[in-house]
């Protein structure tokens, strides 16, 4: 299966507001009051921006699983 993704999507600026955060939370199984969503907004924007910076790195050679040091030993 090939997923169609806009090539520039990882670099798009996050556009978030409290209502969107409440919706995202509900989808993940968490009921969030708008005031809590407002409280979390800045931190979430910062986290998503940090993820964008990771997305810009070339990590193609690295799997998301396995030993955290990447190989079973320095001799591999």
């Amino acid at each position, binding site marked *: 299966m090939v997923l169609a993704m806009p090539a520039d999507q990882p670099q798009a600026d996050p556009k978030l507001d409290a209502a969107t*955060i409440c919706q*995202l*939370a509900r989808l*993940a*199984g*968490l009921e*969030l009051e708008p005031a*809590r969503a407002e*409280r*979390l907004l*800045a*931190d*979430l924007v*910062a*986290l*998503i921006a*940090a*993820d964008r*910076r*990771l*997305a810009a*790195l070339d*990590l193609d*050679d*690295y*799997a*998301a*699983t*396995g*030993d*955290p*040091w*990447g*190989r*079973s*030993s*320095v001799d591999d």
Partner: protein
Amino acid sequence: MTDPAIAFAGIAAIGARYRDGSLSPSEVTSLCLERIATHDPELNAFLSILSESALDQAASAEAELRSGRDRGPLHGVPVAIKDLMAMAGVPTKFGADPIFHEAPERDAAMVRRLRAAGAVIVGKTNLLEFAYGAVNPRVGQTNNPWNPERTSGGSSGGSAAAVAAGLCYAAVGTDTAGSIRIPAAYCGVAGLKPTYGLVDLDGVSLLSWSLDHAGPIARSCADAAAMLAGLTGRPVTATPAELAGLRLGVIAAHRDAAAVTPGVRAAFAAACRALGEAGALLEDVSPGGLEQMARALMQVLLPEASVILGPRLLRHAGALAEQTRAQLELGFLLPATAHVRAQRFRRYLGAQFLGLLTACDALISPSVPFEAPIEDPPIDEASGFGELLCSTPANLCGLPSLSVFCGQGEGGLPVGLQITGRPHGDELVLRLGAAVERLMPPAPPPRFIA
């Protein structure tokens, strides 16, 4: 030995006196319990003090030694455990509001190991709420034995303070982003985050399957080795490493970071000079990816903690510290792709560190950029993640990493030197730490306690 000399003695010295009959586990356990009664009201290091069961365990240990049954270095030695691991019949309090306390019916694997090694468990120690970065106001922080107006750090602050104050001989901590090494540095003791997976976490309240570790906190690397041996059931020793010709990579970005205080900078420089004069070959190293590291750790930690703890804890959100609540909520909101990308980044970072550890025997840096602050700083963008600056690579890469006392900084507060080694190179890391202890002036008993 006088009482303070006994309270601050090493595990091997206490054990030798047990075996020559000049001191007994009951006497030493009673001394620790008296010291806890005297000093803990100011320190707030213990959430449960287990006087009765500890004296029973000490009596059993004593009887066994008399009958010729010797369980090894921890036999009859008073220790403490962080209060997020299960101990049958003793409430687990998690540093949290009573609504979250649990009553386990069986021991965590580490508790079983400690019992098998003959250790005497004198109490369960204070921690940041669920080890997640914040003090619950109903519980309060653990105050620092060097200056009770400062924090002992977290999240294993109770364990580090109890050891530093001579209330027990070693303790267990857990470390997801530095929670063994940070309080060890603030309290002037040795704290080892072992290789990922080395210590069994069964029965421990987790934050993150892929970042959590448990390990020893003790007043010396030799004592930390004895504790690690007890926790794993494998022999570990910490005879000081021969430094001549040893290659040590100095993580320049951590040594030179703006957050590093003059006191930490000076103590770390003095330790580096001493290592060099002893024949070690020091070389600056610059692993890639350090600037993304703390945020990548949060991308892994937040969703994992929310999956593990969120459903149970957010039912009583009002009973949580605000920071704990916010972090748990944030974990539900990050895209899964952010978690996966951060997991990939870890392997990139791991390759960087493993490459350096092929050329070097170990990597060194300050353990924390600053001395113990008044209270634990939040883990967020606004704080610049400063407290976690040096500790997070070893969590992301699963590498063994030790904080060892290397001097005193501003206000006479202790400074830690961090030594990070190859996967499963825990023993060499402890041996290097023992060599640092031999080179540098020893940590005196904390001024407040002495």
